[in-house]
């Protein structure tokens, strides 16, 4: 099957931890892989050597985007009057399937190259100093929408937990079996927020309760919702869509 083959080129780079996490997501994944296989009619793209070349170009584009990225260049911020209402829901599943996380039981798990790995409860997280932003969310599909998110600066949080910020990757395993990973430079960007609120309200389930990573310098699918575990690593962690062929860096 096409989709599995795309993922194989990444397989070698995956850490053991992520492989284990992915195993859990396999059931849900295989369903959507079936759906995607139906959609892919292009035989040329399926050809193994063509696929290899395209993936190599995608890797080259990761490098170029890393080089283009500037931690001082900010995503434009907008007045609240520009906010898109209603803000669209988007996930790899339908809105009816949004998971209900029990906030009282919730704990954010930390792993990998982090000094203080004690799990965080929601009240502890909410007590951290927060900032807000009104920025444009751009979906890989092409549409965009402006929204308001509030939360703790991710760079502050990484510092607080003693994350090794010289590491290459920050990975996210989500409670809805989604996963993604980002480069450290973007993780430390001043507009990258560990967001707890949308439009001044605690994030509703459809926008990722209890928290999402809001990255206005990356495409929407690089903004994980319902985050369960954050880990720091030098091993390429991939991600749900990335393993299926979407460009990994996907910066704006």
């Amino acid at each position, binding site marked *: 099957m*096409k989709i599995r083959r795309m993922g194989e080129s990444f397989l070698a780079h995956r850490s053991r931890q992520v492989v284990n996490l992915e195993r859990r997501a396999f059931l849900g994944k295989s369903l959507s892989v079936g759906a*995607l296989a139906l*959609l*892919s*009619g*292009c035989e*040329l*793209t*399926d050809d193994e050597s063509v696929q290899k*070349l*395209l*993936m190599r*170009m*995608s890797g080259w*584009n990761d490098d170029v*985007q890393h080089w*283009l*990225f*500037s931690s001082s*260049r*900010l*995503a*434009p911020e907008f007045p609240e009057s520009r906010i898109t209402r209603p803000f669209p829901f988007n996930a790899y599943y339908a809105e009816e399937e949004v998971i209900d996380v029990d906030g009282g039981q919730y704990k954010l798990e930390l792993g990998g190259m982090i000094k203080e790995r004690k799990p965080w409860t929601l009240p502890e997280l909410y007590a951290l100093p927060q900032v807000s932003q009104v920025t*444009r969310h*751009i*979906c*890989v*599909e*092409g*549409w*965009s929408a402006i929204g308001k998110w509030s939360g703790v600066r991710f760079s502050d949080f990484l510092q607080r937990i003693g994350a090794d910020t010289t590491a290459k990757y920050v990975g996210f395993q989500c409670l809805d079996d989604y996963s993604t990973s980002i480069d450290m430079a973007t993780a430390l960007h001043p507009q990258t927020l560990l967001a707890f609120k949308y439009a001044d309200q605690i994030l509703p389930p459809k926008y990722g309760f209890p928290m999402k990573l809001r990255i*206005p*310098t990356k495409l929407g699918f690089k903004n994980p919702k319902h985050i369960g575990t954050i880990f720091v690593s030098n091993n390429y962690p991939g991600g749900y*869509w990335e393993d*299926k*062929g*979407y*460009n990994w860096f996907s*910066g*704006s």
Partner: protein
Amino acid sequence: MAQEVVKVHPLVVRIAHWLNVLAVLIMITSGWRIYDASPLFESFYIPDSITLGGWLAGALQWHFAAMWLFVLNGVVYVTYGLLSGHFRRKLLPIRPGAVLRDVLAAFRGKLAHDDLSVYNAAQRAAYLALVLLLIVLVLTGLVLWKPVQFYWYGRFIGDYEGARLLHFFAMAGVALIVVVHVAMVILVPRTFPSMITGRVRRAS
């Protein structure tokens, strides 16, 4: 009647032309697939059968791979065209009156093609418009690809959503010019080998 062989297309232009054919074909067909993932105009879709990539991620891979061929080839062509005087010699001057006259003549089937080494006014306008539209596609494409990194000029063309519209209409312009161009080559078939060999025979 004696015939004389004339050189009409320099080697650089011929190579750039065919590389551009390949690059633009990939860019447009994969771009159509990307467009279909979230159409700008609600009921306007491009049929899957004429798109490239199989699905959105595949189309994006093609688009962002072929863009390097497209841009590098374009830079070589434009640099050559400007520095060698090729653009000035072949595409200028363009007088609106002459363009209109030649377009009308073409519709009546009376546009003369006796000397293929000289472009008529309609050709000059179309080729120059094509080059400009392709440059617009690169500039708007960069804003779509990296709206934050290129916001410094993206802001002047309506940011991401403005660039999206411009990118679409520039594509439509290119598609139109390509259709007319191919139709004209079919009508005047001896122009085709000249873009490969670089030469035509001219009655003297």
